């Protein structure tokens, strides 16, 4: 050790210059003793002289540097472990022993080998590493942004991009896993296909993978949400400029979603986040965890209460128009600072709607809605009503219950919230909302006019009749959004959705039903039922539960031949380009087409059928597999469907919207036809060429894909229908075919449904089984559940109103889009009018038959679609592979559709059959296992492999699809 006494004491001579005054604490100044005044290098030669001096001492300093490699402070902080290990080779330090700051609560490992807590949440702590083993991407958990029923959202540092991202870590439970896969597939599709340039204010999905049996989804990091913004504004309304800007941006997202056939199902201020990284300020729609595809609506208990649409509240089949209702509520809340319908209960919510808006949901809705009796009293006769529909009388056969009546029926008093506004009617609430202080007179006049526009705008959004409610495109043309002067009530260009369409029937399920599970039927079957509905007690709309939907997705690929193929292919294509694309995408594509086609409602059900068929056949499309992982063996209990009802989703909201009184009759008819067709169809299937889907023209397909809204499609479809009656038939046949298939194969159903409980329906006439119900079960979301983590959590940064800037460009684009849309719609409408057969036709006239046909059509379209968009080249190849001439695509849209069908057929029947089998089987096996093991764990174990493969959860699906594709 140092010999202290040997150390030298060097005393520097003092100069005795102690002439400075003693320091005082108040105005202490250091004296020029040891220190000398600092001279800026730029002001003198000091720098050079100092450098020279240091240069002259370089020998010494060099020696020093060798000894002291780095500043001691660094060696005793950053390099402390290293330093101490040099000092003592036995020194041991383990980072792993550091106390962990757990972010997950509870943080006790109970499940999944101790990785998960009792809630099946992955136990996270700071610096926890999430690894995408596939892409070798690593994410370091830094903080918790929020927790929900679905799992957790963590703020993570992305080591690859050196950016923060928000990673959603889904619970290790099949139901949540599956739902999250849907979210991924939907967002992936929206991002890649419909919004590749990130112009539509939809959150970007950056990555997804399975880690420790948890699906993890990485999103761009955003800021606070609109609720927080309002809160920061002390619940005072935002300025109309900002309301308008946000409205415009949200509409851009809604337009894309509708084009894609996506229903968000949980639009609310909390799910709209401000992106602080962008100037001018932008918002983004997040949380597609509740979203579904139109025509695949599974849950009836959706949307957060304040923003819940009347049709959802009443248990009526819903479409993307429910998002427009929510949007209207959001816009009103942005202006008012408080929710427009802060219902303390569903009854309170309904009463508020009726009071504020006047009127009530249309009778056709009330007649068919599942929950009507809960809130309304039937005071008239149905027939009477139908007549009244034609006349403009607004009288209704239903009267909303009084509080007392409600209490009598429900045996409990409804919760009634207090009123926050001094006025009752919407017009008065808006007009009398306090103006900002110190507004000059002219500004007040100006704003009062804008408020009139706002009222008119809201009237088109919070419209009881989903069929009359404006579409996003229609709303985008409103003067309130465009900024044009508001002179008279806005009359949006007609759009197909506004045409009354037959509604699919909802079926009530018995939640308890072990039936679901028991039924070998696939959910898809249920869709079949739709076709057949008359006989069967339950009409399913599109009862695809998620599970089923997934299955269907996959299945689509496989069977859908028409649709399915198209879609699945599309997905494959995506996969290649992107990474993994889930089969769901395919379906989405489907839906999208459908939507575009507005007229094609039924399409989705068909697709499902097909898919099931494929399964049954054993041809299962690879896509299925993808789904398979998703499928939960999940225990029914967990996933009990929110409402027993299965909604048959029709693809386009419009269709659903107004139910046509005729339906009943129509259905019956349709059934009859369907049955007949069924056989026919089989034949068709057998012969790929036979395909009925006349619709899609090659051109159409691509067009759709690109724009999402192509006018041409409707026309094409329309033509198709008109031209080929067969198509309709074929569609029906599909369903039949499927049915047969389904019946034959217990496997198929089981696969799809692992989660879903399908119950076999005795095949009455149709021999269709209704299984759809089961699907719903797994995915249920309680109201709260769907909601993402608190927006507040997302980003501490708060953007002030002032930050918000308007983007004028958007408006113009919207307008143009709108114009396009208008065109599109028009043709379709005409078509409808002209041909009874057209989609519309079926809606109104022959609902059932048309349904089928429409479905097929859609399928055809979709297929074309997918081909065209995804891989034009590929599609050709595929065709070639099939032996089908590519010609079809170009020459005849309808044929195009056929082609797709052909593929499909191939897949199932002949050439492809083998391939599909190969691929399909593995998937099946997984599924089967899942099914067999009712326990969630078992499911997982099965699914795990997937995850492993996946690395790409999506990938799992993809690989198969890719293979198929390639082979094809």
């Amino acid at each position, binding site marked *: *050790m*140092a*010999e*202290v*006494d040997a*150390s030298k*004491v*060097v*005393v*520097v001579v*003092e*100069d*005795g210059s102690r002439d400075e005054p003693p*320091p005082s*604490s108040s105005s*202490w100044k*250091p*004296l*020029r*003793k*040891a*220190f*000398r*005044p*600092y*001279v800026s290098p730029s002001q*003198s030669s*000091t720098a050079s002289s*100092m450098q020279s*001096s*240091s240069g002259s*001492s370089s020998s*010494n*300093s060099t*020696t*020093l*540097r060798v*000894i*002291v490699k780095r*500043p*001691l*402070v*660094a060696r*005793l*902080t*950053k390099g*402390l*472990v290293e*330093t*101490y290990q040099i*000092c*003592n080779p036995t*020194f041991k*330090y383990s980072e792993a022993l*550091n106390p*962990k700051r757990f972010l997950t609560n509870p943080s006790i490992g109970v499940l999944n080998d101790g990785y998960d807590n009792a809630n099946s949440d992955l136990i996270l702590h700071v*610096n926890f590493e999430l690894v995408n083993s596939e892409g070798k991407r690593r994410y370091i958990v*830094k903080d918790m942004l929020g927790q929900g029923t679905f799992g957790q959202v963590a703020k993570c*540092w992305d080591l690859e991009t*050196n950016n923060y991202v928000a990673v959603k870590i889904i619970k290790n439970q099949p139901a949540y896993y599956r739902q999250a896969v849907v979210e991924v597939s939907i967002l992936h599709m929206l991002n890649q296909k419909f919004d590749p340039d990130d112009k539509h204010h939809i959150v970007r999905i950056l990555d997804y993978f399975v880690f420790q049996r948890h699906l993890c989804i990485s999103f761009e990091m955003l800021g606070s949400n609109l609720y927080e913004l309002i809160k920061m504004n002390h619940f005072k309304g935002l300025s109309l400029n900002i309301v308008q800007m946000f409205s415009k941006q949200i509409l851009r997202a809604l337009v894309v979603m509708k084009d894609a056939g996506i229903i968000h199902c949980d639009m609310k201020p909390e799910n709209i986040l401000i992106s602080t990284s962008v100037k001018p300020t932008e918002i983004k729609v997040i949380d597609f965890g509740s979203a579904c595809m139109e025509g695949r609506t599974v849950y009836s208990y959706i949307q957060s209460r304040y923003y819940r649409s009347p049709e959802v509240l009443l248990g009526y089949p819903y479409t993307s128009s429910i998002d427009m209702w929510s949007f209207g509520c959001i816009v009103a809340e942005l202006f008012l600072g408080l929710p427009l319908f802060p219902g303390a209960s569903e009854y309170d919510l309904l009463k508020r709607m009726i009071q504020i808006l006047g009127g009530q949901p249309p009778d056709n809705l009330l007649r068919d809605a599942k929950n009507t009796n809960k809130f309304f009293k039937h005071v008239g006769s149905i027939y009477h009503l139908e007549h009244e529909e034609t006349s403009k009388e607004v009288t209704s056969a239903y009267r909303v219950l009084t509080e007392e009546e409600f209490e009598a029926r429900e045996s409990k008093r409804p919760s009634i919230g207090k009123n926050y506004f001094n006025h009752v009617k919407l017009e008065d609430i808006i007009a009398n909302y306090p103006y900002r202080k110190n507004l000059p007179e002219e500004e007040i006049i100006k704003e009062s006019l804008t408020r009139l526009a706002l009222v008119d705008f809201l009237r088109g959004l919070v419209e009881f009749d989903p069929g009359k409610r404006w579409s996003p495109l229609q709303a985008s043309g409103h003067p309130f959004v465009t900024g044009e002067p508001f002179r008279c009530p806005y009359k949006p260009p007609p759009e197909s959705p506004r045409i009354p369409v037959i509604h699919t029937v909802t079926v009530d399920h018995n939640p308890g039903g072990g039936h679901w599970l028991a039924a070998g039927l696939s959910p898809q079957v249920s869709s079949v039922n739709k076709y057949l509905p008359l006989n069967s007690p339950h009409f399913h709309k599109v009862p695809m539960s998620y599970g089923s939907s997934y299955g269907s997705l996959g299945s689509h690929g496989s069977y859908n031949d028409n649709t399915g193929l198209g879609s699945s292919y599309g997905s494959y294509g995506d996969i290649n380009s992107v990474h993994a694309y889930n089969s769901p995408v395919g379906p989405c594509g489907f839906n999208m087409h459908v939507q575009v086609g507005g007229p094609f409602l039924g399409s989705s059900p068909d697709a499902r059928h097909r898919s099931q068929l494929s399964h049954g056949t054993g041809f299962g499309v690879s896509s299925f597999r993808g789904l398979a992982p998703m499928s939960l063996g999940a225990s029914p209990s967990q996933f009990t469907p929110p409402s027993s009802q299965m909604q048959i989703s029709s693809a386009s909201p419009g269709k659903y919207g107004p139910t046509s009184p005729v339906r009943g009759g129509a259905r019956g008819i349709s059934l009859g036809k369907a049955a007949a067709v069924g056989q026919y169809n089989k034949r068709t299937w057998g012969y790929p060429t036979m395909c009925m889907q006349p619709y899609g023209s090659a051109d159409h397909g691509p067009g759709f894909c690109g724009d999402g809204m192509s006018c041409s499609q409707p026309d094409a479809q329309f033509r198709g229908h008109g031209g080929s009656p067969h198509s309709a038939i074929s569609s029906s046949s599909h369903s039949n075919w499927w049915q047969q298939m389904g019946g034959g194969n217990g496997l198929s159903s089981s696969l799809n449904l692992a989660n879903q409980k399908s119950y076999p329906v005795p095949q009455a006439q149709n021999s269709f089984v209704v299984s759809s119900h089961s699907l719903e079960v797994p995915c249920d979301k309680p109201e709260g559940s769907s909601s993402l983590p608190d927006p507040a959590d997302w980003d501490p940064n708060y953007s002030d109103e002032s930050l918000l800037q308007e983007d004028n460009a958007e408006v113009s684009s919207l307008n143009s889009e709108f114009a396009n849309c208008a065109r599109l719609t028009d043709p379709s409408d005409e078509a409808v009018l002209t041909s009874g057969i057209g989609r519309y036709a079926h809606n109104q006239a022959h609902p059932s038959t048309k349904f089928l046909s429409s479905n097929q059509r859609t399928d055809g379209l979709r297929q074309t679609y997918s081909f065209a968009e995804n891989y034009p080249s590929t599609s050709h190849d595929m065709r070639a592979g099939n032996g089908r001439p590519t010609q079809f695509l170009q020459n005849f849209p309808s044929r195009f559709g056929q082609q797709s069908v052909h593929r499909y057929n191939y897949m199932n029947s002949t050439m492809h059959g083998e391939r599909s089998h190969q691929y399909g089987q593995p998937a099946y096996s997984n599924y089967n296992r899942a099914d067999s093991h009712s326990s969630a764990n078992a499911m997982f174990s099965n699914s795990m492999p997937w995850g492993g493969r996946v690395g790409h959860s999506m990938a799992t699906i993809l690989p198969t699809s890719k293979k198929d594709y390639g082979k094809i």
Partner: protein
Amino acid sequence: MPMISSNPPSGGNKAQQQQQQEEMESSTQESPLNPNAFTFDLPHPVYAMAFSPSPFAVASSCSAVAAASPRLALGSFVEEYGNRVDVVAFDEDALAFRPDPALSFDHPYPPTKLMFHPSPLPPLLASASDSLRLWHLGPETAELRSVLDNSKSSGYCAPLTSFDWNDEEPRRIGTSSIDTTCTIWDVERCAIETQLIAHDKEVYDIAWGQAGVFASVSADGSVRIFDLRDKEHSTIVYESPRPDTPLLRLAWNKVDRCYMATTMMDSNRVVVLDIRSPAAPVAELQRHRASVNAIAWAPQASRHICSAGDDGQALIWELAAAAAAGGSSEAAITAALEGIDPILVYTAGAEINQLQWSAAHHDWVGIAFSNKVQLLRV
């Protein structure tokens, strides 16, 4: 005794001469030898350094040392297990250092920090390395009073990067560790009062602001303030512009508790923070020409801070009176763009590793560079 430094004593003199020559060149009015800088040579580099509290006489065993004279504890930096803490007194009358071998002792690992008990009694010195140790500097000898170690895994050790003795509540010592935690010790009971996971990465320094409030800096690049009354939350008052740029040192202004200063690794900047306006530093002092290694607020004035670094310079800065206000003058604008200039400079002959400003003797600043310790009169 391992002599890490090959620097002969004369080297120090030479460096000093050079330094003073240079001073002569730049400001010719001073004599070749700086009359207000006093150098103590050691056989090894010094890192840890501590000034004793004011009247130290009571516990002093060295009769020769005046009661009011500053004392220094100096920790060696030798890359061996065996290191050394020397206690040295400075006789202000004789202007000479007087080592106190009786109170010097061996120390495991190079101490990362040394600190005397805030008040003269009891005569305790704390040191940090693999553990926190309390040494009683008795009249005759220094003896190890206690080892405060909270490692739970035998064989493994989470060394301490720093600590701070709470001068308002001398029972409390807060330590910072690379295990991401800060531990608050009750040194009277030799028990842990609390241990907080303070950061997401290693904690490099800690400083008390009040009896129950401390701040810490970390490899995660943040400065966080903790209030022991609410241990669940911390306030991040600063984050380095590039995430995960380590912040190595932290100094809390004891006169005006609104201000603290921190240094970044491999950075020539001193970041001065006003805890009333988090996130945006009130000043960035960037006149060092190499990385800053140490900072110390003037113990008697609210707006003066000294910094020292690898450029061999110790700079004294005077912060603008209305740093927060920004002012309207050109000077304010210039300051905003380029930062302010220090008012005084001292040039040592080598990289300055340590800097302490004596709380008991406000006019003494101690610096450590290579094998030397210097006391500078300010």
